[in-house]
């Protein structure tokens, strides 16, 4: 009886031992493959909106640019003798997804740093995760002041902030003599920021500003556009502060209603969806005379990197690179540069290198990051980002061929071009 019991127990524990050993084995194998993978490559995360409701073309452009950067680094022998591997995370333009993707990139994929993002609200969520984990993040194309104004040491930005670009745009609007500016912005960190900067800068200058904010998924702007038609003084400058489908639909509807772009009212598409090939497919003739404000144009200013990037991009994707693709490329290259300079992949060392050492000539000029905290958004910004106001002059025009209105040193036309109707 006793023997039996003992036998049984022993048999049982034998079984348990085997299962346990197998589990350990699997676990060990798992750990081994994990470390094995990490030892082979340096992983850099790229976050971007790649499915709706995010601005998918923005996301795709960021990824297109980032991929060229990784290929270029690997062709030149990688970093610290290792290959670079991009881990791409789709945030779908949703802050909660951004948080989840960042957590995954940092804890599971063990990325050394993250680049990308095209939506401010999502970036605001992502920088929290980066800050908590001490991982550097280089924002490609999210403009809200708040991102760098938070003052997190891990957060860098290779594009403009709302205040940086729209204070300049507002100045230009004033100089051009517009009387009544209407801003319709999405209720995201970026869209509300656009409204705020225009209001702050133009109200004092004596230009009337009317603003509306709406849900980012809104598709029908007709009621508000019609309301603007009867405004006094008449609206002569309309700012489309939406991204994705909303931006394109507002342009289309404003044109159909005969409001803008027209001879009486100019239209600025503030979101970057005015720059991608899909723009002409969706808005068609409504896109002619639309203004856009890219944070970079290929070859302006001319740098060695910009020429090379333009060539590779054209060969790979069969179109001219846009500002967002250049930003995607720059953000990954800046991280690589920090690794090269510090000869380390440790987060703290990288943050220090990005802040103090990086002075790298990118596709749009020499990138270095400001340490100035006054104003707050200037912290870890690249302050010399080139910004342009361009205007399309014909159907299916590439942004790089559009007329440049501002800044003066690059301008190809003297003042705003107006349609005859």
């Amino acid at each position: 009886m006793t023997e039996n019991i003992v036998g049984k127990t022993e048999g049982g524990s034998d079984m348990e031992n085997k299962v346990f050993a197998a589990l350990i084995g699997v676990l060990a194998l798992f750990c081994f493959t994990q470390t094995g993978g990490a030892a082979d490559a340096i992983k850099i995360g790229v976050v971007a909106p790649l499915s709706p409701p995010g601005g998918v073309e923005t996301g795709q452009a960021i990824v297109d640019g980032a991929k060229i950067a990784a290929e270029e680094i690997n062709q030149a022998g990688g970093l610290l003798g290792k290959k670079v591997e991009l881990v791409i995370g789709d945030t779908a333009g949703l802050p909660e997804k951004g948080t989840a993707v960042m957590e995954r990139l940092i804890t599971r994929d063990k990325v050394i740093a993250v680049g990308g993002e095209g939506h401010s609200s999502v970036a605001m969520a992502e920088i929290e995760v980066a800050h908590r984990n001490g991982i550097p993040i280089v924002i490609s194309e999210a403009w809200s002041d708040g991102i760098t104004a938070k003052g997190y040491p891990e957060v860098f930005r290779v594009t403009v902030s709302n205040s940086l670009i729209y204070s300049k745009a507002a100045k230009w609007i004033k100089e051009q003599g517009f009387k009544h500016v209407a801003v319709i912005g999405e209720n995201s960190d970026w869209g509300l920021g656009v409204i705020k900067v225009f209001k702050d800068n133009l109200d004092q200058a004596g230009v009337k500003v009317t603003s509306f904010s709406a849900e980012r998924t809104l598709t029908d702007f007709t009621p508000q556009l019609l309301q603007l038609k009867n405004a006094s003084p008449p609206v002569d400058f309309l700012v489309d502060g939406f991204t994705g489908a909303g931006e394109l639909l507002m342009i289309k509807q404003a044109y159909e209603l005969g409001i803008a772009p027209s001879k009486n009212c100019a239209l600025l598409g503030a979101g970057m969806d005015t720059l991608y090939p899909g723009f002409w497919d969706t808005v068609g003739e409504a896109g002619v005379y639309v203004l856009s404000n890219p944070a970079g144009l290929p070859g302006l200013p001319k740098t060695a990197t910009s020429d090379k990037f333009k060539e590779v991009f054209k060969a790979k994707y069969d179109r001219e690179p846009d500002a967002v693709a250049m930003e995607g490329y720059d953000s990954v290259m800046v991280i690589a540069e920090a690794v090269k300079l510090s000869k380390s992949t440790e987060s703290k060392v990288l943050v220090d290198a990005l802040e103090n050492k990086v002075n790298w000539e990118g596709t749009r000029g020499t990138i270095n990051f400001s340490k100035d905290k006054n104003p707050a958004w200037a912290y870890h910004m690249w302050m010399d980002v080139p910004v342009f106001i361009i205007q399309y002059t014909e159907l299916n025009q590439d942004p790089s061929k559009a007329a440049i209105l501002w800044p003066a040193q690059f301008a190809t036309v003297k003042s705003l071009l107006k349609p005859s109707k």
Partner: protein
Amino acid sequence: MVIGTLYALMALGLSLIFGVLKLVNFAHGESMMVGGYLYYFLATSFIVHLLGLPLVVALAATVPVLFFFGFILEQTFLRPAYNRQTARYDEYVILVTFTLGIFLQNLALPLFGPYNRQAPAIFKGRIRIGDLIIAGDRLTGAVVAFAVIVVLFIFLYRTYWGKGLRAVSQNPEAAASLGINVPRMRSMAFGIGISLTGIAGALLGQIFLVNPVMGVPFAVKAFVIVVLGGMGSIKGTIVGAFILAVVESFGSILLPDPTRALAYKDAYGLLLLIVTLMFRPQGLFGEKVRRA
């Protein structure tokens, strides 16, 4: 008016399916998306361009395809539940249509890509009536939607099949005892429902853009309309659609703070839904039915 007619068309599909099949089609927005893409691809396909066919033909061609699509869906996924192969019909169909919606949306992403596409408009340009300007695509949408609704009414009230559908909607057992093939009527109702929704999607794809999630905001509106008008009531759906369109347009203009009014545009519909549910849960034209 224009948007109201389109709203009516898109909600009628949902209403008809509920009336006859007694199920809520949670894949409503996705059916709309299928219609949008179908029209987009037909209208931009080389056959249409080669033969120089007018785009109306492409629109008309979507109808049989959508009907067949709906017919097959009902036969494959919903028929087993109706044939009492499942114990809980209501729960089963909710899960099936819900899953179908998620499946279609996620199928569209890799298949068509996440990009926005502009379905070519049948009639471009704009019409000016005094101070009122109506864009051509909206006018086409409203005219086509109106025509489809008229055809639907003639079908429902003047033809044998239409009367059969209404009979099944009122009392399936009695209809069956009178020799009406109830299962076939159900497939047909689902097919017609999907077609109506799909045409609405094709028309909305011209006004707004076609992408995998295009139907989602409209599906919410369709639910509001159907609840407001009374579940399954055709008349109620049309009235509900116009009420929603008017409330949305005026709500976003008349609110005292114009800078915020636009932000609440979608909220008006939901507010309408809550008020309906509180004071008249059966809807304007709905029947007070207590289901076991």
